[in-house]
């Protein structure tokens, strides 16, 4: 009896951990999906936007002792400003060029941002440890960490906020319409480049916020970006490219699967598991599990 209970508890804990981890994945992947959905750009410096958001929170916390959750607006602002500037002055120049050029461009920016951060802040691992770090509450045998629960909630809210914005809001609809028919946008006097830069700022902002949240429970360092980009990509492919709620579904799915493998097999193979999942999706259903994303 006792043994059976422990087995169930382990499974439940794995599921809860996975669900919450999935919330984190969704939080930092929806911006990737937004930027892809509107601009058809796969942003390889996505992970650096997370890193910028995380370091903004870190420095405000370390230097001025601001509570991490109160730093989030600044994280949003710094990442979206960076995203806006890069989009406006660099990516906009290659938006009309062959697609190869646009993502090689984002790859170059990835290298520059990551290594600038390395030069400025060194390769050290850093953490944001608050008085409530590691706090959680228990439901029976299961522990729920607070910070991740908060991230989970914020991820759900932002995902639906963006979804609502693009589907129901007038400005959001204009953004979508402009991205789908550039010629028409030009005719009615919409500056498509401005639309792109604003979208990029929005996507970068929510990504920066996710970075700020992540800094409260994961170690952060300048080179952290690339694995996050890979995971965000896989999450978005799992959920369907460019379909915003897909990021939530994909994130949760990936979180649960990784948590289960970490509990029952090993935690060292997370990227491998992610890739294998991605690969199976590619074989079985290239449109993503929701079957609604765009495949080119």
């Amino acid at each position, binding site marked *: 009896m006792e043994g059976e209970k422990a087995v169930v508890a382990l499974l439940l804990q794995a599921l809860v951990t996975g669900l919450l981890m999935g919330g984190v994945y969704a939080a930092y992947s929806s911006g990737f999906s937004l930027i892809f959905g509107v601009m058809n750009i796969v942003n390889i410096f996505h992970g650096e936007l997370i890193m910028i958001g995380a370091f903004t929170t870190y420095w405000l916390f370390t230097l001025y002792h601001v509570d991490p959750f109160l730093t989030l607006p600044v994280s949003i602002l710094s990442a979206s400003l960076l995203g806006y500037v890069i989009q406006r002055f660099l990516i906009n120049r290659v938006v009309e060029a062959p697609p190869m050029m646009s993502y090689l461009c984002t790859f170059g920016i990835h290298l520059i941002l990551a290594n600038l951060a390395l030069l400025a802040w060194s390769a050290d691992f850093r953490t944001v440890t608050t008085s409530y770090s590691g706090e959680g509450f228990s439901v029976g045998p299961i522990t729920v960490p607070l910070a991740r629960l908060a991230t989970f909630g914020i991820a759900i809210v932002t995902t639906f906020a963006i979804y609502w914005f693009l589907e129901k809001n007038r400005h959001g609809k204009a953004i979508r319409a402009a991205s789908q028919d550039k010629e028409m946008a030009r005719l009615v006097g919409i500056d498509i480049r401005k639309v792109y830069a604003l979208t990029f700022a929005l996507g970068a902002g929510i990504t920066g916020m996710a970075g700020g949240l992540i800094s409260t429970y994961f170690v952060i360092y300048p080179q952290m970006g690339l694995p996050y980009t890979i995971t965000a990509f896989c999450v978005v492919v799992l959920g369907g490219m460019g379909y915003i709620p897909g990021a939530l579904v994909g994130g949760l799915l990936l979180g649960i699967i990784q948590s289960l493998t970490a509990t029952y097999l090993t935690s060292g*193979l997370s990227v491998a598991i*992610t890739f294998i999942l991605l690969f199976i999706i590619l*074989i079985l259903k290239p449109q993503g599990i929701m079957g609604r994303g765009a495949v080119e």
Partner: protein
Amino acid sequence: MRSKHVIWLFIFMLLLLFPLLKPQGYYFRMFSMMFLWMGLSSAWNITSGFAGYIDFGAVAYFGIGNYATALLMTKAGLPFTSSVLISGILSSFIAMFIGRYTMRLRGAYFGIATLAFAEAVKQIVFEFDRTFKVTLFEGSHGITLPIVHDDRFFYYIFLGILFFIVLTAFLIDRNKFGYALKAIKEAEGSAELAGVNTRRYKVASYALSASLIGILGGVNAYWLTYISPLDVFSVIHTIHMIVMALFGGIGTVFGPVLGACVISLANELIGAKLLYTYLLMLGAILLVVVLFLPRGVIGLISMKRSRR
């Protein structure tokens, strides 16, 4: 047109004769390193430059080649040459399987999928033994190979493979295979409508690139005598292949050779001492090339020529 090829052939002859000057070991090693990079970026260029499927995970095949050769030599006791050849064949088989599905993705989606693939292989090699309680890849310990003190041997091996790779690229560039790849790069849909079996050709190019990179990886393992997952699967190697080919002229036969020559020298001079500055510089080069010089240095040279 022709004079260009004569120059390249002349340089090759000089390199063949160079050891007769009895140079110091350092020069042998530096040239070997340069040949390795020229070969890698030329091989990478077949898939990424000719067919336009930018491979962000090419290091996977470099690492696979390293490990296959190391394991075949140390655990199976096979001689060097056959180990390297088997590494190349193994790489191409893995690439056929991976490419068959990942090449359903276009552009950057293919790029990140391959990036994920390379990271996954690295992780598997790193964690395999610990996870499954066996002794195969040796995880973080790495593998030590039999030591050979013969700089000249490796100089000629690398030079020979480089010659073979460039010749392959040169022939592809002007035969049917090359036309299929260029058609796929420019307009895959139109290529299909023109009768090109696009899936077969792009997967074939990917497998070819992979086998060449795998062979170079195999030689690299024997040359370095010690390999570990974090070294041979490092994403920096892929970054190098990308930047070198792009800098010299992506999709051209000699561009990657030229780009690799310049950038591997830069790596030798500052890469070891100022790694972050060096990587920052690579990013800047990438941006400048993408924004202002999409055809690379080779494109710049041929533009000047045609103006004259």
